[in-house]
């Protein structure tokens, strides 16, 4: 189909679909007047039952914890997919990399960052990691949790890249450890669910005393799940960053003149 023909098909079709969507939206409650039975119930019972102050987290990890297992597996699968989809390019690039190594001496080929940026960047790594760990572990109390904290942890690696060089990042990032950590995090979530089945008699059922509202260890197994997710997310995103950076850096090496 020519582009013109496609547009002729698309224009009325999209108009019709949009009309349908808008028609559907008109059936929704006015903005701000929603009364959902499910949400209202959770808002009422979640804190007394689960002792976790953040209901979004207790919904994510307990009431709808099984969704989150699936979600975590999607992330895990996507990273496996990246390994598959980017692998061949890497194989080819290794040859080119050798050629590239020969010219390593060329001045100006490697972009150097200023000392100030480097010192600042490396100084940021520690606080970033601490912040990430804080967000992962305080998920039951305040906004945050394994997903958010995991992403913050993964950015620590990016800070190294921004501040220093790609080579420095490759040096500090323990690739096999990341891979194992990512898989372990994914597996751990499923295993904690299994723990619920064995100890409490139901898959994904909490088997740890929920404690008192507001304390760090409240929420029963939610902090554990948060740590599993934090591990998985930090590993997955670090791996993903690395896979893409590998490609980008090597491709740039390809161009020769940059």
């Amino acid at each position: 189909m020519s582009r013109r023909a496609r547009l002729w098909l698309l224009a009325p079709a999209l108009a019709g679909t949009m009309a349908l969507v808008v028609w559907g939206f008109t059936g929704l409650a006015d903005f701000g007047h929603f009364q959902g039975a499910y949400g209202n119930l959770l808002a009422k019972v979640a804190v007394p039952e689960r002792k976790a102050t953040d209901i979004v987290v207790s919904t994510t990890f307990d009431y709808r914890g099984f969704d989150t297992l699936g979600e975590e597996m999607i992330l895990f699968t996507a990273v496996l997919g990246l390994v598959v989809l980017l692998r061949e390019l890497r194989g080819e690039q290794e040859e080119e990399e050798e050629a590239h190594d020969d010219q390593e001496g060329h001045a100006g080929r490697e972009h150097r960052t200023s000392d100030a940026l480097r010192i600042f960047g490396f100084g940021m790594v520690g606080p970033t990691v601490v912040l990430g760990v804080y967000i992962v572990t305080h998920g039951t109390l305040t906004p945050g949790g394994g997903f958010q904290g995991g992403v913050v942890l993964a950015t620590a690696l990016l800070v190294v890249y921004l501040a220093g060089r790609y080579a420095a990042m490759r040096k500090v990032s323990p690739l096999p450890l990341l891979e194992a950590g990512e898989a372990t995090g994914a597996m751990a979530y499923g295993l904690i669910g299994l723990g619920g089945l064995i100890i409490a008699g139901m898959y994904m059922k909490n088997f740890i005393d929920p404690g008192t509202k507001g304390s760090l260890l409240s929420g029963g197994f939610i902090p554990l799940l948060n740590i599993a997710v934090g591990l998985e997310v930090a590993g997955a995103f670090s791996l993903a960053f690395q896979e893409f950076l590998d490609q980008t850096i090597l491709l740039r090496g390809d161009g020769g003149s940059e």
Partner: protein
Amino acid sequence: MSFLPYAVAAWLFGVGIYGVATSRNLIHLVVCLTVVQSGTYILLLAIGYVGAGKAPIFADIPLNSKVVDPVVQTLTLTDVVVEATVVALLLALAMQAEKRFGTLDPDELGVMRS
């Protein structure tokens, strides 16, 4: 009454699909897909909004406070992760397309006809 958040969701849906269908660059196409997906975030969060409701986190508000729907927030969280993964895969494919076909224009791929 205010319908603007719904209108934004619908707009993102339509304009994103238009972009996906007519894009000439795979990276742009993937971003358009995320625009469509953003429509679902807006829609979910708009649906669950309760006028003058607070965030459903009872760290420093009394237990009987009026809060927005916590379920849609959970759903959105899941949705965001799902989207991030799909985008990662699609970008990897786009990268490979650039390598194998020497172009990012989806219309110039087309090795598979009929």
